[in-house]
C-alpha cells in the first residue's frame, strides 16, 4: 500500500506555513500556520474576522464550544482561518450544515460566516427556512455586492448599475434588501454595519451570538480587487471613506427603508431585536405539553 507510506511520510514532514516571531493578541483565535490569508489588501473580510475574534473574546465563551461554518467564496474561507472547530462546506449550504450541528449538539455555539452570494443567492432557501424555524445560530453575511471568489459576477445583492463580469454593461436587476427579507421570515436579530464600523460590528456579533434564535448580521464590506475597481470607487480605504460619509446610523429603522443603491446613502444599524422560542425550545415545550413526563427533554 504505497499510498499509505506516502501519507505517513507526509505526516512526518513539518507543517507548512510560518510562525511569526511576534504574537498578536488574536493569534490564538487563528490558524497561524495557515497565515498569511488569501484576502487582498484593503479587503473587508479580514476586518470582520478581527471583529469576530474580538466578539468571541468579549463573549468569553470557551472556544472549544464555538463552531464556524462557511460556504464557498472569499468569505467562505473564513472557516479555514479561525482556530475553532470549523467547517468549509459547499456553496450555499452552510446554514443547513450549521442547523444539523446545532440540533445535534445544542451546547455548541454555531456561527455561519459566509458571503452574500453564498448565503442569499444560492443559499436563499436555507436562509429563509432557518430563520422561519428560528434555529439558534448566528449568520454573519459579508456583503461585498458580488461573487468575488469566481472573479466578480453579479450577485442577488448587487446594486443596480454595477459593472461586473456578467453585467458588463451594468446590472439592471433589483437587489435584495437583506434586513427586510430577514425580518419578513422571522429573524429575531437583524443588524447591518460596514467594515468601517468595527465597534458596532463587533457589538452586533456579540449581541447576535447572545441572542437565542436566528440572528443575522450583514456587513457591507469592500472588495477592492473587483467590486470597487469595477465601479471605479478606488480601493478599500476609499470605500471606507465613502461609508464614513454615506452611512446613516439609524437603530430601529424600518427594514423597508434599508434598500441599498449603488451611490446613495445607506442605512446601517440594528433593525430587529425581538424574541420568540427557538426551534429546540419550541420542540421541547411542545412535546412536554403533548407527551407529558414520558418525554425526555432533548438536549442533544
Amino acid at each position: 500500500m504505497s499510498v499509505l507510506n506516502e501519507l505517513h511520510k507526509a505526516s512526518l514532514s513539518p507543517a507548512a506555513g510560518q510562525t511569526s516571531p511576534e504574537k498578536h493578541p488574536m493569534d490564538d483565535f487563528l490558524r497561524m500556520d495557515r497565515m498569511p490569508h488569501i484576502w487582498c489588501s484593503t479587503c473587508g473580510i479580514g476586518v470582520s474576522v478581527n471583529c469576530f475574534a474580538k466578539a468571541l473574546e468579549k463573549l468569553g465563551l470557551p472556544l472549544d464550544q464555538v463552531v464556524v461554518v462557511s460556504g464557498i467564496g472569499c468569505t467562505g474561507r473564513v472557516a479555514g482561518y479561525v482556530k475553532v472547530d470549523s467547517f468549509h462546506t459547499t456553496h450555499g449550504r452552510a446554514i443547513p450544515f450549521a442547523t444539523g450541528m446545532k440540533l445535534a449538539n445544542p451546547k455548541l455555539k454555531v456561527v455561519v460566516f459566509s458571503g452574500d452570494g453564498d448565503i442569499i443567492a444560492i443559499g436563499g432557501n436555507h436562509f429563509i427556512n432557518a430563520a422561519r424555524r428560528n434555529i439558534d445560530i448566528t449568520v454573519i453575511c459579508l456583503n461585498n455586492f458580488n461573487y468575488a471568489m469566481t472573479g466578480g459576477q453579479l450577485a442577488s445583492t448587487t446594486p443596480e448599475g454595477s459593472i461586473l463580469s456578467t453585467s458588463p454593461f451594468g446590472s439592471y436587476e433589483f437587489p435584495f434588501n437583506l434586513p427586510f427579507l430577514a425580518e419578513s421570515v422571522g429573524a429575531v436579530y437583524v443588524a447591518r454595519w460596514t467594515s468601517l464600523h468595527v465597534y458596532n460590528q463587533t457589538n452586533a456579533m456579540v449581541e447576535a451570538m447572545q441572542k437565542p434564535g436566528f440572528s443575522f448580521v450583514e456587513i457591507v464590506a469592500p472588495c477592492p480587487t473587483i467590486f470597487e475597481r469595477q465601479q471605479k470607487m478606488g480601493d478599500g480605504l476609499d470605500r471606507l471613506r465613502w461609508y464614513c460619509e454615506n452611512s446613516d446610523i439609524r437603530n430601529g429603522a424600518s427594514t423597508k427603508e434599508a434598500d441599498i443603491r449603488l451611490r446613495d446613502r445607506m442605512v446601517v444599524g440594528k433593525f430587529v431585536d425581538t424574541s420568540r422560542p427557538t426551534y429546540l425550545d419550541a420542540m421541547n415545550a411542545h412535546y412536554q405539553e403533548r407527551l407529558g413526563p414520558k418525554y425526555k427533554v432533548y438536549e442533544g
Partner: protein
Amino acid sequence: MAKTEIKIGGFGGQGVILTGYIIGKAASLYDGKDATMTQAFGPEARGSACSAQVIVSDGAILYPYVKRPQVMVIMSQEAFTKFSPELDPNGMLLIEDELVDAKGISPTVKVFGIPATRIAEELGRKVVLNMVMAGFFAAVSGLVSKEAMRKAVETSVPTGTEGLNLLAFEKGYEYGLGKVQAP
C-alpha cells in the same frame, strides 16, 4: 518543425498574462505560426508570482505545455527564483533590469535586461511596463515579427489606449534592438 517554448513570469498586476497573450496572438494570427498559451490559475495565487506559457511553432502544437522554456521573460525577483531553474541552459533570459537580479543563472544562458518600469514611468503610465517588455522580447528574441506584435498589441488593449501601448512597445523594441545589434 521549429518549436520554441516561452515563459513569462512576474507578479499579479504586471500584465504577465496579457504579455503572453500578445505574443501568442501575434505568432498565431499575424505571423502564420501556431501558438498555444497556457497559464496557471489558482485562488491562492492572488498577488504572488504568476506566469504565462507560450509555445510558438511552425507546425501544429500537440502537447500544449512548456517543459523547458528556451526563452524566459521575468519581471519580478520572486518569479525569477521560482521559474528560472526551468530555463534551458542554452536559452535566453529577458529581465526587468531594476526589479530582477539574475544572479546564479547559468553562464550559458544569454541574459538581456531592460529598465522597463522606468521606461514605462517615463511614458507616464507604469502599467505599460508589459508592453515595453513585449517590444523588448520581439526585438531580442526575433521569434515573432514586429508587425505581428504591433497588430496584436493594437487589437488586445482597451480601446483608446492603443497609442500609448504601441509607444511603449516601440520603446521596448528599440531598446532591444540596441542590445542585440550592439556586439
